[in-house]
């Protein structure tokens, strides 16, 4: 099973097959068929601890458990087996939410800097050096 370490690898892996909604493929006929997950545990395709995220042709399903996303190929006509193609941590697959957090941090940082610059503009004193009365301000 391939382990995906970066967001770009994840995007490339997702592009390998055309993704379809999870509802396209029903796993109800597979009963307790298990697959190797990235979290080092076995999960059943119909288990309560996994969620079906997407489907791919011919019979591939992307599952999500508590900590990992795993793409599984279900093989066989009379007797099915699961082959895990790749896996990645949830944080990599859900990179979007992270970048949103980053953006929020950036916003507050930008506001801080804006305030500093605005303070300069507000406290700016225009000095007329030809006017002796403004000598104190200049100093």
């Amino acid at each position: 099973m391939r382990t995906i370490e970066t967001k770009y690898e994840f995007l490339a892996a997702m592009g390998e097959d055309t993704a379809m909604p999870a509802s396209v493929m029903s796993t109800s006929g597979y009963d307790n068929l298990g697959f190797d997950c990235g979290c080092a545990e076995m999960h059943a395709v119909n288990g309560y601890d996994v969620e079906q995220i997407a489907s791919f042709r011919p019979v591939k399903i992307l599952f999500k458990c508590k900590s990992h996303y795993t793409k599984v190929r279900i093989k066989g006509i009379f007797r099915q087996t699961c082959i895990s193609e790749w896996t990645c941590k949830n944080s990599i697959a859900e990179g979007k939410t992270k970048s949103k957090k980053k953006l929020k941090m950036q916003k507050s940082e930008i506001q801080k800097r804006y305030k500093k610059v605005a303070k300069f503009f507000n406290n700016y004193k225009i000095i007329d050096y030809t006017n002796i009365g403004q000598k104190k301000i200049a100093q």
Partner: protein
Amino acid sequence: MENIVNVVDKNLSEVSAKTGTPYLMLQVGMITFKLITKDQLIKVREDLKKLYELGKLLDFNPKLMNALINILDDDIGVV
């Protein structure tokens, strides 16, 4: 004058690099966010322009001159 380099130019350059927004737009943004008034911005910019002209005559520190060029740059990044 120190503040022009250490506060205004430094902070605007960092925000500009992060957001890809020109300096002038950032300065106008301060009016939008009601941090300064339009009149104050115009006044300060006019005074900084005078300072820049003075700097050219008196050969001010290049750091200050560069900061002034950046702050007074009228390019808004629209072709």
